[in-house]
């Protein structure tokens, strides 16, 4: 293995180095000066994000366990940008006195999960995949319990670690059966030796359930609401955007590269799960009064839409899925950004608290409106284009009924996405949330998210670029 080969792991290596650097810097900082860790980490991470965009070679190392190409780089870069926005939006919260001691932890835990996700995306066999998955999951539990003096946060951590233990177990069981039936854990060899025996189907369902847990697809979603509500807002936004997005990417890559032989079968599985997810997610989202819980269920419904892209099993399907995740990243981070800014400033997280927000904080209100419109899929914001392309992709594969159900669900979702908008602009309030000015990090994060929400859909170059890197069934 040459130095060139090692450089293929650029993203993972840079993140690891950054993680270690932060650990070391943290050791040298004491007391108040600890806060300087925020700008330092942000700058370093920005560097990592930028380097990620430099042109890179493709190839595979470790005997095919790790592989990289244009698509994986694109996925990793999307996750990097999302993480950068999360970091920016977390700064105000991290600056609080109570977090002073464990500032570095936040960065390190998130970075280590990001490494895990990158490994998952680049994995060429199930072992590497599983290592990535665990690296991406266990620190999340610690993150969910970050404010452990709060019962809810601690509860969220426990619930996440226990649920994910269960799902990991089932997933690992699935992998072992895959190994048992095909005699290999390499993606290419499994794909070559795959046969549609009942045992294989069972193995696939076990594996799929584990992934469905990560993306929080119904009926494997039950942990989501409790964890999202209990965890600190910024962790929730990381969970709902980066963690979910990466899992969707991985599920798609694995389905397209490992299981092309049973494409009709997994399309049926996805069909059922997509319908369940969109519908149940919507039905629960309707009734939520807590903004975090509201966004949690909304993100479940959105995950159902992602499946519409994956189910296409074609180059178009992959393009639309990646494009949708990209729009979803910016949109959801804009929504979570506003919720987190308000939560950090006032501690208020209920929809009723947002009544009359426009009177006091017009800019935040408009941004939240923009994000919710995008989530609901109203043109000309990014979310509309994301959904539109997804529907077009599914329709081009003749999944007309699925598209119809999705359209109905999108209509239903419009109702609840407009509820906060109504609260903000129409509902009266004696004492609305007071006017405040966020710090420069939060504002930068919000501006990036807003620009993304506004522009991604209109700049066709983003779509064309994704299309040029996508592929169909292998």
């Amino acid at each position, binding site marked *: 293995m040459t130095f060139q080969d090692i450089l293929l792991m650029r993203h993972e290596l840079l993140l690891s180095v950054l993680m270690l650097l932060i650990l070391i810097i943290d050791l040298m900082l004491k007391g108040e000066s600890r806060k300087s860790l925020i700008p330092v980490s942000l700058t370093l991470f920005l560097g990592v994000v930028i380097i990620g965009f430099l042109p890179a070679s493709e190839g595979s190392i470790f005997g095919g366990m790790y592989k990289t190409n244009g698509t994986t780089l694109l996925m990793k870069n999307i996750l990097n940008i999302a993480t950068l926005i999360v970091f920016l939006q977390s700064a105000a919260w991290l600056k609080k006195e109570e977090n002073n001691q464990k500032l570095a932890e936040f960065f390190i835990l998130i970075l280590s999960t990001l490494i895990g996700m990158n490994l998952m995306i680049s994995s060429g066999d199930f072992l590497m995949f599983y290592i990535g998955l665990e690296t991406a999951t266990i620190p999340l539990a610690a993150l969910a319990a970050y404010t452990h003096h709060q019962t809810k946060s601690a509860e969220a951590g*426990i*619930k996440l670690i*226990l*649920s994910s233990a*269960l*799902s990991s177990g*089932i997933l690992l069981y699935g992998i072992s059966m895959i190994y048992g039936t095909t005699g290999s854990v390499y993606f290419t060899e499994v794909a070559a030796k795959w046969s*549609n025996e*009942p045992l294989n*189907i*069972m193995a696939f*369902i*076990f594996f799929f*359930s584990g992934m469905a*847990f990560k993306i929080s697809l119904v*009926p*494997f979603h*039950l*942990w989501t*609401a*409790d964890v999202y509500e209990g965890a600190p807002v910024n962790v929730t936004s990381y969970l709902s955007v980066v963690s979910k997005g990466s899992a969707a990417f991985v599920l798609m890559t694995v389905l397209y590269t490992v299981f092309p032989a049973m494409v009709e*079968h997994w399309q*049926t*599985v996805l069909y059922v799960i997509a319908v369940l997810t969109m519908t*149940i997610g*919507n*039905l*629960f989202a*309707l*009734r939520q009064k807590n903004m975090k819980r509201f966004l949690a269920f909304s993100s479940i419904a959105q995950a159902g839409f992602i499946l519409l892209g994956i189910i296409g099993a074609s180059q178009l399907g992959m393009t639309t899925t990646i494009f949708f995740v990209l729009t979803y990243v910016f949109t959801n981070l804009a929504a979570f950004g506003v919720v987190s800014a308000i939560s950090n400033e006032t501690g208020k997280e209920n929809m009723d608290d947002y009544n009359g927000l426009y009177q006091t904080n017009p800019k935040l209100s408009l941004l939240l409106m923009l994000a919710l419109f995008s989530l609901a899929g109203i043109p000309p914001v990014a979310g509309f284009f994301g959904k539109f392309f997804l529907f077009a992709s599914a329709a081009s594969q003749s999944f007309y009924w699925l598209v119809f159900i999705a359209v109905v669900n999108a209509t*239903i979702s419009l*109702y609840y996405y407009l509820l906060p908008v109504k609260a903000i602009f129409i509902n009266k309030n004696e004492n609305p949330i007071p006017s405040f000015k966020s710090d420069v990090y939060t504002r930068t994060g919000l501006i990036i998210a807003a620009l993304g929400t506004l522009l991604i859909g209109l700049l*066709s170059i983003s779509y*064309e670029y994704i299309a040029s890197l996508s592929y169909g069934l292998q």
Partner: protein
Amino acid sequence: MTNYSYTLFIPLIPLAMFLLIGLTGHKFKPIVSGYAGTLGLTVAAFLSYITAIRYFFIEGAVDGTYPMIKAVSTVWLRFTDTLHIDLGVLIDPISVMMLVVITTVSLMVHLYSLGYMKGERGFARFYAFLSLFSFSMLGLVLATNIFQMYIFWELVGVSSFLLIGFYYEKPSAVAASKKAFIVTRFADLGFLIGILMLSFTTDTFDFKTLTSLDGPIITSTAGASFMGLSVITWSLIFIFIGGAGKSAMFPLHIWLPDAMEGPTPVSALIHAATMVVAGVYLVARLFPAYAIAAPDALHVVGYVGGFTSLFAAVIAITQIDIKRVLAFSTMSQIGYMMMSLGVSGYGDHEGLGYMASMFHLFTHAMFKALLFLGAGAIIHAVHSNNMTDMGGLRKYMPITHITFLIACLTIAGIPPLSGFWSKDEILAAALHHNPILFGIGFGVAGLTAFYMFRLYYNIFWGTDRHYHHTPHEAPAIMTFPLLFLAVASVFSGFLPFSHMVTSDGKPFEAHTDMLVAIPSVVIALIGITFATIMYKKPSTIPDRLAGSIKGLYKASLNKFWFDEIYLFVTKRVIFAYISRPIAWFDRHVVDATMNLVGWTVTTASNKIKGLQSGQLQQYAMVFVSSVVILVLLFVYLISK
């Protein structure tokens, strides 16, 4: 080939100014917005002139033909390999000519408004909208494909709507802006249908492909037909409907007179010189398609144009409001341009009508903008729109008087002013192709001279009224544009248009046809003489004449009751017999269905809330049993 990519900035500068003034205008003194907008337009005008000089004089024709250059082009939405919506800049003779027209008139209007709109509430808003309009109009003429043109077409409509309704506290302005928007939008529906049909049959939006002689329109002869006309013909007729709406062609003209509710500089820019000629530009843009592939559609263009020009001229004779006289005159002159396109053939001297139409578009923009700005100065001085409140103003407003007189002589077609040259070419083209339309055009020339001089005498001669304040000449910032446009009106006729703007891009020699020129001057002089007899001094002739042809007089005064006809059709017929049943259906059937759906959803939502208990052991149970159920289900399905 020369690089014209800088032309992208010509529309982008006004856009930047719109955003700047619109977003930050309220933070500065209003006049700053005015200066910013004017400065931006000055730069855009400068770039346009450079482009025109380079295109026509430095580069000139390549191999005897002016090239059609895509200076900038990016794919915006791709449907198939050939069918994609681009955004770009197209440089060819007519787009370069339009650049000059738009930026010149727009710059003059910007300058003029510094004086005219001084002290108005919403001064910054006015300049923001002016910039938005300039951006949209420039984007329209530079469009590389018909869909881009459609986008800017609608933007132009929106800016026109905003500017007509500028005095939004005045109910009549609000009504006029709505009317203009709805009528033109209705016509744009035809445009859109035409675009869809055309792109469906030809598989492209691109102007260059659509108009090239070996392109899909012109080579395709087969295809479905409907009522004896091919799909291409139908689609071009539909596209013309959009153009007719914007250019206020009969019977879609009803919005233009009311649009005079907007500030007068706006009328000069949008409703005289630029936006209303968009329809002419649209037909000219697709001209090879009309001329070669769909001569029937071109006939429609010609007859609609000819009829409108006569119709509007008859109405213009009796109007009292000076801006409305000018509005109907605009309609009439645009009808002229359309008629001229309608009688044109393709290539060389056959394309005389095309050249004449573009020529007249150019000269008309100058003198009509001058007339409107002059009217604005008059209205500014006497605080009224009605000519019954005016008279004898030549003593008080010498500059306005002289420039207005020049404009009237120009539009009447008196040599050697520019209007004579362009009108002469139109009549010459009509004479050779269609004697009926020539007759109409000839008559309209006389009517035009008559009503313009009726207007002129009523304002500047006639009885001297008692004014509240003594009228005074407008400030220099307003008279400068008048003088500039007067110079342009006098001299623009000497431009060698047949060497620059032709139907196939190849220059040809155009001669003044004495057989046409002499009668047309004579009839103009007759019209002027009649007007002089009747209106120079107070006389009873006009009233006696009106009495002797009472029916026609009333019909013309009431604009042939077209507004009333439209109101009858919409309110009494469409609203009562179509809209009301639909509203009932919507309220009782559609709403009820939706309420049922809503009720089902909320009920279902309530029923399943127990699923989310918060207890982890239950979650685990659901998880595991779901896996088992899925496995059983799929193993069963597959083994079957």
